[in-house]
């Protein structure tokens, strides 16, 4: 059916799919001349699909008649995601194993993280100076894991603040983060035995716009001159606006984010910066709770296995064996 020089001409077959008989077709796969197989993934079982084949050559193409409705079935597992399942199983077993081990009181070593060692000192300094501490939990909602990590650190900072009777304020950009932060701080004051010191205004809401929020917070910084700023969570372009203003008023600044694009600005303008994974490890590090420390160990073991896999992959790739790269690139 295809011309002999099809390959040289660059003839391609595209498989198009739609879920309605008269719906718009989208390309789901492509096969070069001479190939007879094309796999379509991401289908939902029991849903009707219609296919047609398009032969494309340069700018021109010709379509086949659409197929009858086809159903995918019998699949209880997306096999092309096997690699993700393997990783998930290895990862969660490692984490769970070390959590149970940690419960049996086997001490776990964690290397020094300077930014976190400075937290106590930063809270103490604000108390001594009789000045405010600002805790900014990023600008994203609680659907972002960095925000959850930040709230865990906030819990620790708030407990210290209650103990020292420091003046803590948490301005928020996201309303759900605001709700969660208020619960966190309230509980921390309760746990520290000072519920009397908790005031609702400590955790407040500003506005939903990133830059309007930044303008308010920078304004607050220059007017109230906090002694300590925590900038921890998910940040975008406002990172430097906040950090540089804080720097200009001479506040001690502890920052942390996993947003790769914003790390340079925090590193440049803050005294301490929690980089990427350090942010997530912070709650374990600060609380020294065995269960949390156990999960860090499990994470490290997974990292070790990945490093081994990476090394093996490089070696195999160098001698021309594609097994590892195929396994990791399966999508």
């Amino acid at each position, binding site marked *: 059916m295809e011309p002999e020089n099809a390959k040289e001409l660059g003839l391609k077959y595209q498989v198009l799919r739609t879920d309605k008989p008269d719906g718009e077709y989208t390309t789901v796969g492509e096969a070069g001349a001479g190939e007879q197989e094309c796999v379509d993934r991401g289908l939902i079982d029991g849903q009707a699909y219609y296919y047609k084949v398009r032969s494309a050559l340069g700018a021109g193409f010709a379509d086949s008649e659409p197929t009858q409705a086809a159903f995918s079935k019998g699949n209880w597992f997306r096999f092309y995601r096997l*690699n993700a399942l393997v990783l998930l199983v290895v990862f969660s077993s490692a984490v769970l194993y070390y959590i149970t081990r940690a419960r049996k009181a086997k001490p776990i070593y964690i*290397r020094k993280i300077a930014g976190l060692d400075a937290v106590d000192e930063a809270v103490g300094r604000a108390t001594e100076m009789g000045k405010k501490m600002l805790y900014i939990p990023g600008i994203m909602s609680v659907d972002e894991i960095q925000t959850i990590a930040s709230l865990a650190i906030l819990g620790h900072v708030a407990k210290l603040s209650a103990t020292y009777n420091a003046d803590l304020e948490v301005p928020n950009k996201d309303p759900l983060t605001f709700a969660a932060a208020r619960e966190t701080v309230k509980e921390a004051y309760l746990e520290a035995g000072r519920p009397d010191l908790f005031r609702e205004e400590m955790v407040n809401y500003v506005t*939903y716009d990133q*830059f309007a929020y930044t303008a*308010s917070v920078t304004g607050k910084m220059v007017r109230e001159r906090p002694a300590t700023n925590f900038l921890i969570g998910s940040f975008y372009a406002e990172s430097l606006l906040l950090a540089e203003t804080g720097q200009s008023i001479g506040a001690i600044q502890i920052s942390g984010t996993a947003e790769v694009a914003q790390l340079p600005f925090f590193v*440049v303008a803050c005294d301490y910066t929690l980089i*990427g994974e350090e942010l997530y490890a912070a709650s374990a590090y600060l609380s020294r709770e065995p269960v949390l420390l156990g999960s860090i160990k499990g994470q490290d073991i997974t990292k070790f296995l990945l490093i081994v896999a990476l090394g093996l992959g490089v070696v195999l*790739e160098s001698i021309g064996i594609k097994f590892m790269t195929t396994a990791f690139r399966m999508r």
Partner: protein
Amino acid sequence: MPGLGTWLAAFFTLCMLSFLYKDNPFFRLAESFFAGLSLGYYIGIVMNQTLKPNLVLPLIHDFQANWHLVFAAGLGVILYFRYIKRVAWVSRWALAVYVGYYVGVNMMQKLHGEVIPQVGDTMLSLSYHGIGTLWNLVMVIGVLSVLIYFYFSTEHKGVIGGISRIGIWFLMISFGAAFGYTVMGRVSLLIGRMVFLVNEWARPLIGLIT
């Protein structure tokens, strides 16, 4: 003569720029107005683009097919239980579902969408094929050393300490380079504001005088 809108925009632009000199009543005025205005803006956006098309209209137009959205509204209302002391604890339910769902989504997205492809893409061939081999080596060493830097449960001394030091160097190159690379984009934004002030506001104004 610039129009009312242009005057307003120019006034706000100048108010915000005045912050560079120092905090002042003009900046504070603009900042306060901006906070209120932007919150009002998002009220409009949420009403018109989330609640109306995703909740109200589906319920009005085809209740039978969309009755389940009542639960969504219920979860939303639960958030406000915090204002009623007796049932305040229920307000956590909405938060629990919200966090749980997205944390689940994110967990798989991080493992499958970030860890696996990023590790896979670093499995580069180191067999000799010209200068590219050297660059591949830089890539592999960079990724490995940064990963070692993040290794928490071992003391960073000796060989591990040395490798993690290299990791720090890679991080520093990256931070410096990314900072330098971003300058251009930020300056473009400043150009945008300045062009507005100079060409759309000041020029017509000066043209009026001369």
